[in-house]
């Protein structure tokens, strides 16, 4: 970790990787288009599978939304390190005078931006399609969406750095990731659902605490563990 002094500062390094990923995405638009289409598709399928009438939609809305984000997110997460690996870019990144964990935080923030962008597009669509105002309590719901997305991407980026090296990686990524994010999913669905139904904040604080704990634990673990994954 000591080599960062010689080269770029930590924040500069992180920012360089974020802008690189965003620039690549703006040119190719592979991740966002696929994520958005998949999330939309999930919502359409939910409509057939769950029969979302106006009476039940408030109870199911949060679950349907988070499943859509989770499934589409776990698909796009697989791509994140695949690009780096296919083009030999990861070796180049490792040669850069850069703290290894800066690579992780750069990729994680880029993935987080993709997830948040997908949310910004999908939620209005969902609101129109199912006639339920998801963003009724705007600030708290935004906080819940951000914290859920952060936890998912924190552990997702770490696991995708592992799964990209495995045989049958397209299947291994979601297989390893989805059970681990179960606590974050439970908490996020509870908070979002509670806010949609207009439950008082006191009933949701415990869930906010679990989600915050999830975010902190996995960001800290990823920070420690990431350099072990990519070292050759």
């Amino acid at each position, binding site marked *: 970790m000591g080599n960062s002094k010689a080269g770029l500062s930590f924040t500069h390094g992180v920012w360089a990787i974020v802008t690189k990923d965003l620039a690549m995405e703006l040119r190719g638009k592979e991740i966002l288009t696929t994520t958005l289409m998949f999330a939309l598709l999930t919502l359409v399928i939910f409509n057939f599978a769950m029969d979302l009438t106006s009476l039940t939609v408030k109870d199911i809305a949060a679950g349907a939304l988070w499943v859509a984000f989770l499934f589409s997110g776990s698909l796009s997460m697989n791509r994140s390190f695949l690009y780096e690996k296919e083009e030999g870019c990861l070796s180049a990144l490792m040669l850069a005078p850069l703290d290894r964990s800066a690579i992780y935080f750069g990729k994680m923030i880029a993935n987080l931006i993709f997830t948040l962008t997908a949310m910004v597009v999908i939620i209005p669509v969902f609101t129109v399609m199912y006639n339920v105002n998801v963003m009724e309590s705007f600030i708290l719901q935004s906080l819940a969406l951000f914290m859920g997305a952060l936890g998912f991407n924190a552990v997702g980026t*770490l696991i995708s750095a592992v799964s990209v090296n495995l045989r049958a990686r397209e299947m291994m990524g979601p297989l390893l990731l989805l*059970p681990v994010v179960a606590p974050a999913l439970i908490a996020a669905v509870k908070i979002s659902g509670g806010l949609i139904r207009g439950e008082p904040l006191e009933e949701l604080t415990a869930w906010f605490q679990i989600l915050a704990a999830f975010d902190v634990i996995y960001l800290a673990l990823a920070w420690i563990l990431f350099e072990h*994954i990519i070292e050759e």
Partner: protein
Amino acid sequence: MKFLKDNAPIAADILAVATAVFMALSAWMVFNYAPMEEVMGWPQKIFYFHVPLAIMCYVGFLFTFIGSIGFLWKKDFVWDRVAVCGAETGVVFTILVLATGMFWGKPIWGAYWTWDPRLTTSLILLIIFSGYLILRSRVEDETLRAKYAAVMGIVGYADVPLVHYSVKLWSRGIHPVLEKKAGDPGMHPDMYMALKVCFVTFVLLFFLVFIQRLRLETLKDDVERLKTQR
């Protein structure tokens, strides 16, 4: 290390004999010594096997966690073997916990499965650590395999408290909990005695399976090394 390796077969034999003796004793105590529970009747007998199994599967996953940290720290494959053997033993014990729980649940709850916190937690841990074992089979190089598995082992074990608390908050649950106070175990003293003997039995069984599995893993490594030497 060499002393442990040389004496592992003897230790395993002693453990095997002790486990067999205690298993017979447990079976006798459960069915003849411990009194019949008045409300539940026969199905309650599963409890004596179910509870020790449930505790030991967490010990298995704890070995995975310790082994994973040990490997990343020391880069010694002994730790990696501890981790994989812990996960395998833990997964087998978790399956047994779920199976015994289901056989008890059908007559008592009227259903094999409910989404009760403890059942859900065990199931999620089973999926996480099964994923850990599948991951291991998807990497050829043994150093990389140990490294990726170690990361997944730590990530998976860190989830244990999170899964536990979130699932507990998620549903109140109908799983029975022993009301233990100082000097009162919450059950008939003979039942408590039988439970204690069963607990010793399953600790022995756990370490028997664990050590045999560890020996097998060590032998596999020896064979690989001999193959490459030739």
